């Protein structure tokens, strides 16, 4: 057990901070307020991600064969921590490098790797994830979007297309994405996690319609994606037909702690503390509790990265870290309103922006309840019934 950083890691963090100080524009805080999916932040990420890639940092944790540097998972974790602490200037592209790329490396065909990985590694690719459906949220395996084989008009390698019908919901970044990591049911008779397949679907295919869902969280946060007779070539299938659940289980373990949201909460808390009335014991107590919650979330996220660095399979510690992160974000959000008082009521104010981000913490990438179910079953060994 030790908690130190190597000289290399420390130097990397310092170099990265200097790079960020230089590249982030003076009005970055304004840009960042809209969240990773806002038009402003997406536009900035089109400049930022290629710059990060040019430094060799965007996908440094990937194998060299795919444009990475075989860096340790810690390097990528430091990157995520520093970037989230600044409001995630990668915009939606954190998702690609965290788990979509690794899933393609593990399950993709040579052609998919050749076509899809280099744009991600260059910082030029926008993806969205087509998981949730109106009737399949926490219970993701209830998904019903159907993809049926039909002979291909063009001559794909497998000689067929999947014709996709259904809809996806809560899809962040769907308005900007060129590809969707889409979960479909390829066997209409199948139940639960059987018969699910992953398609890497181009978003510009005929029959794909994206509609924004107006929400209180922010503008262009959530979308619905309607799929009507969309012909997806069989060459877009990731992994074997009917075994998509294995692919997505692998991907989700990376996704749950992929976003270092605790780092953003900690930075917000620092800003709150700066304007807290000095010497008010009640406020100090709440600041102390929120700070402790952020620190706990940081360490429990580190524990997951440590397991990855040791080459261990993903465990329920991922769910533990996610719950801890949610507790931290909520503690900070409550304090934001309290310390900013009536000023928090203005849309786009500092407190308001954090409050809206934090309100998604317990639902995004798996609800707190699902995470707690998994901790109860896999860590505590509590029985189902």
């Amino acid at each position, binding site marked *: 057990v030790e908690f130190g950083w190597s000289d290399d890691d420390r130097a990397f963090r310092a170099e990265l901070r200097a790079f960020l100080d230089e590249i982030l524009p003076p009005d970055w805080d304004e840009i960042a307020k809209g969240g990773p999916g806002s038009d402003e932040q997406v536009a900035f990420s089109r400049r930022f991600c290629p710059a990060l890639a040019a430094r060799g940092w965007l996908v440094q944790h990937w194998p060299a064969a795919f444009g990475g540097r075989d860096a340790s998972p810690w390097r990528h974790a430091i990157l995520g921590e520093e970037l989230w602490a600044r409001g995630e200037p990668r915009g939606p592209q954190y998702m690609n490098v965290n788990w979509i790329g690794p899933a393609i490396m593990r399950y993709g065909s040579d052609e998919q790797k050749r076509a899809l990985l280099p744009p991600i590694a260059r910082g030029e690719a926008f993806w969205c994830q087509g998981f949730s459906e109106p009737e399949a949220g926490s219970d993701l395996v209830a998904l019903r979007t159907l993809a049926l084989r039909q002979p291909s008009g063009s001559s794909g390698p497998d000689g067929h297309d999947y014709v996709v019908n259904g809809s996806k919901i809560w899809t962040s970044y769907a308005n900007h994405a060129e590809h969707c990591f889409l979960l479909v049911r390829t066997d209409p008779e199948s139940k639960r996690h059987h018969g699910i397949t992953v398609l890497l679907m181009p978003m510009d295919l005929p029959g794909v319609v994206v509609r924004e869902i107006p929400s209180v969280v922010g503008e262009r946060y959530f979308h619905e994606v309607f799929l009507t007779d969309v012909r997806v070539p069989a060459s877009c299938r990731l992994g074997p037909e009917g075994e998509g659940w294995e692919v997505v289980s692998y991907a989700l373990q990376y996704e749950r702690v992929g976003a270092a949201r605790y780092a953003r909460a900690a930075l917000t808390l620092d800003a709150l503390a700066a304007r807290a009335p000095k010497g008010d014991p009640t406020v100090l107590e709440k600041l*102390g509790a929120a700070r402790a*919650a952020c620190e*706990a979330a940081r360490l429990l996220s580190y524990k997951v990265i440590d397991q990855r660095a040791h080459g261990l399979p993903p465990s329920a510690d991922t769910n*533990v870290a996610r719950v801890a992160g949610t507790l931290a974000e909520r503690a900070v959000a409550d304090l934001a309103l309290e310390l900013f008082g009536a000023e928090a009521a203005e849309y786009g104010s500092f407190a308001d922006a954090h409050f809206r981000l934090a309100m998604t913490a317990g639902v995004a990438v798996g609800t707190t309840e699902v995470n*707690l179910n998994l901790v109860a079953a896999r860590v505590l060994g509590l029985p189902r019934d």
Partner: protein
Amino acid sequence: VDFAPSDEQRAIAEAVEALLAQRAGPARAIELARKGEYDGALDAALGEAGFLELALGPETGLLEATLLVEAVARAGGVVSIGASALAAPGVAGRALPGPIALATAGEGGLVRFAAHARTALVLDGGVARAVALTPGSVAPVRSSFGWPMGRLPAAALRGGDPLGPGSGARLASLWRLALAAEAAGAMRAALDVTVEYAKRRRQFGRAIGSFQAVQHRLAECHVLCEGARWLALEAAWKGAPAEASAVAAAHALSAAGRLFAETHQLSGAMGYTREHDLHVWSMRLPALRLELGGLSAQLRAAAEARWP
């Protein structure tokens, strides 16, 4: 960063566990509590094995000592382990005669181990003072909270030799680290015994631990215990600086309130009995929340250290 124990840490942990399996555990804690006694035999055995000097090195340090404190708390040991293994070596640079009571000059002197202690470490503003006590000279005070307690007389709170400039802040940090480690150990044991109970206890034809309303609360307790444990270990690895120690204490003692409430609620009436082991650990948690100015003081200390 490495969350896995080194070979040496693993060897120490195994030796500690072997000793505790022989000399500690809930049955012994219940027996000692019945008589209001201190576990002098366990204290002596830990000392003879050299465990009380882990903090002094050269190959080991505060981290290994903190792992020891946590293990002793998990085993329900009735010894002044936080003071002996962390506070004394950290602030005095050497082991002090145990049992050791930790006290603050500004409070009433009602503290753990006072009636058995040979040394009191007193936090008096900016300095710490070590006060020699004659065992048996302090009358025991009966308490609900799982440890032998006593009230140090005013003379003891004012006496003794100052341990030098800065020793007060040092003692406060080490005390907070010790509280965090003791709470982490006791919380883990209280949670384990509650989880086992929830698996075994059947009502409405099924184990109560199969109800989601129960599972979620136990799972959240696990999240809090894990956070508390790793924060304590990180603070120890850093050498118990003011901020990390206060953060660890703040998180652990906040969690302790939740753990106390949930483990008792989910253990039903059985949790109130002295035949069920839960109370060995659960009833200590409120006492830890009273020390060094109480939970609110640890929360404020965490904020003041972060944003001076």
